[in-house]
């Protein structure tokens, strides 16, 4: 669920756009360099963007019985790294705003900061830390994908609390309210997306091992990296 068009005050919309811009520009530069050196990467990067969009169209049953959609950014961050996801995530958000009416244009910066910057970086950080701690690929994927999902909605809650502080308890009270509505309810769905990530990577390690080795997720020798 992205922040709808017109929901944030103008100053917050501008502020979050400025905050997201360096990450998106950095991602764009990485993509420009990659495409200049390897023109054929355009197609693979486009396919990665399309996959992220389509992944968010998969319906995910949650433990609580309600149904929602994965963010897809955790899987993207592990496969394609966070800088690339900052750009691809923003492109996907633009498409969701203009093809599905999810999110908006003035809220694109705020949504990009949560969905394409914080989510992928938090998820990738959790993935790398779990791997560094000696865990296998699948537990690390679960940690990375679940945290990317949860971090996205915690960030959205912070953004909304900053924009709409509580009348009597200020930012802290508003944060508690928005976390309760947007992040607490997301925990079962984040666990669900983590499980989906594990099942996805389990199939990929069997059916698409060369691609995972090329992306650096697995070591070419055949042992998990």
């Amino acid at each position: 669920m992205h922040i709808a068009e017109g929901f944030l005050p103008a100053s917050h919309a501008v502020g979050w756009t400025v905050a997201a811009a360096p990450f998106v520009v950095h991602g764009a530069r990485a993509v420009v360099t990659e495409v200049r050196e390897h023109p054929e990467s355009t197609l693979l990067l486009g396919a990665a963007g399309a996959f992220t969009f389509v992944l968010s169209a998969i319906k995910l049953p949650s433990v609580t019985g309600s149904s929602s959609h994965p963010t897809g950014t955790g899987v993207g961050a592990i496969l394609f790294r966070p800088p690339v996801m900052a750009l691809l995530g923003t492109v996907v958000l633009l498409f969701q705003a203009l093809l599905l009416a999810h999110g908006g244009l003035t809220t694109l910066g705020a949504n990009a900061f949560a969905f394409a910057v914080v989510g992928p970086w938090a998820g990738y950080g959790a993935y790398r830390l779990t791997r560094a701690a000696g865990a296998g690929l699948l537990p690390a994927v679960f940690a990375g994908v679940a945290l990317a999902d949860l971090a996205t909605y915690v960030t959205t809650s912070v953004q909304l609390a900053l924009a709409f502080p509580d009348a009597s308890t200020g930012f802290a009270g508003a944060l508690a309210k928005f976390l309760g509505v947007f992040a607490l309810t997301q925990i079962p769905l984040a666990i669900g997306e983590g499980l989906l990530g594990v099942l996805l990577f389990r199939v990929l390690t069997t059916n698409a091992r060369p691609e995972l080795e090329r992306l650096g997720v697995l070591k070419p020798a055949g042992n998990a990296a």
Partner: protein
Amino acid sequence: MTLAVDDAAWGSAWRRRAPGDKLLLSAGLVVCALLLPAWPGSLLVGLTAVVLALGPARVPARTFGRAVRWPLAFVAVGALTAVVTVDGGGLGWAPDAAARAGSLVGHALAGSAAVLLLATTTPMSDLLPALRRLRVPAAVIEVASVTYRLLFVLLDSLRTIREAQAARMGYSSLRRTYRSSGALAAAVLTRSWDRAGRLQEGLAGRGLETGLRVLPEALPSSRAFLAATVLGLGALVSATVVIA
């Protein structure tokens, strides 16, 4: 598989209008929705966007109505949460709850209608090249263009594979649903790589060296449309100031 908003954009009477012209109109309405007071600014912006979309742009009312329904869930939950106050361990309404909620809903719905006016009249393949004028790098636009073209292919794959899985009882229990969803995501990802690889091979055979060059479609800008946009936005702002 198609998307209703994209279908509406291709079939719109404004499809042949210059994307820059429509971008100026929608961006103007979006800024008005954001900056003008909710009463009567949001109402006027929302009405203008709906009348233009359903009237001259001939967007199907059902498509526009269904699309504008999507942001409603977030707007309703977000506005309700914003106007509930936490005090002394109990919940209550903020002093100006009704006015704040009305303002939030008004701004959001008017802004969403203004964005939808652009979305339902301008296909992505027209809009992306227009971003070159905003100094977005060509490589980024090419990646976004490939994303746009591939996502319909992948959505089609997603639907076909899911139907096949469902026919084999792949979604008959929670455990099977998760297992099928994981296999579905993996199948779509490997297909996207396969599709990109075959596209690359095809383009390499045709001499792909420096980017995906396509013949741009000439959609000339209309001075009358631009003048009407500027005058209309000016009238909208004036009317809001006078009434407010």
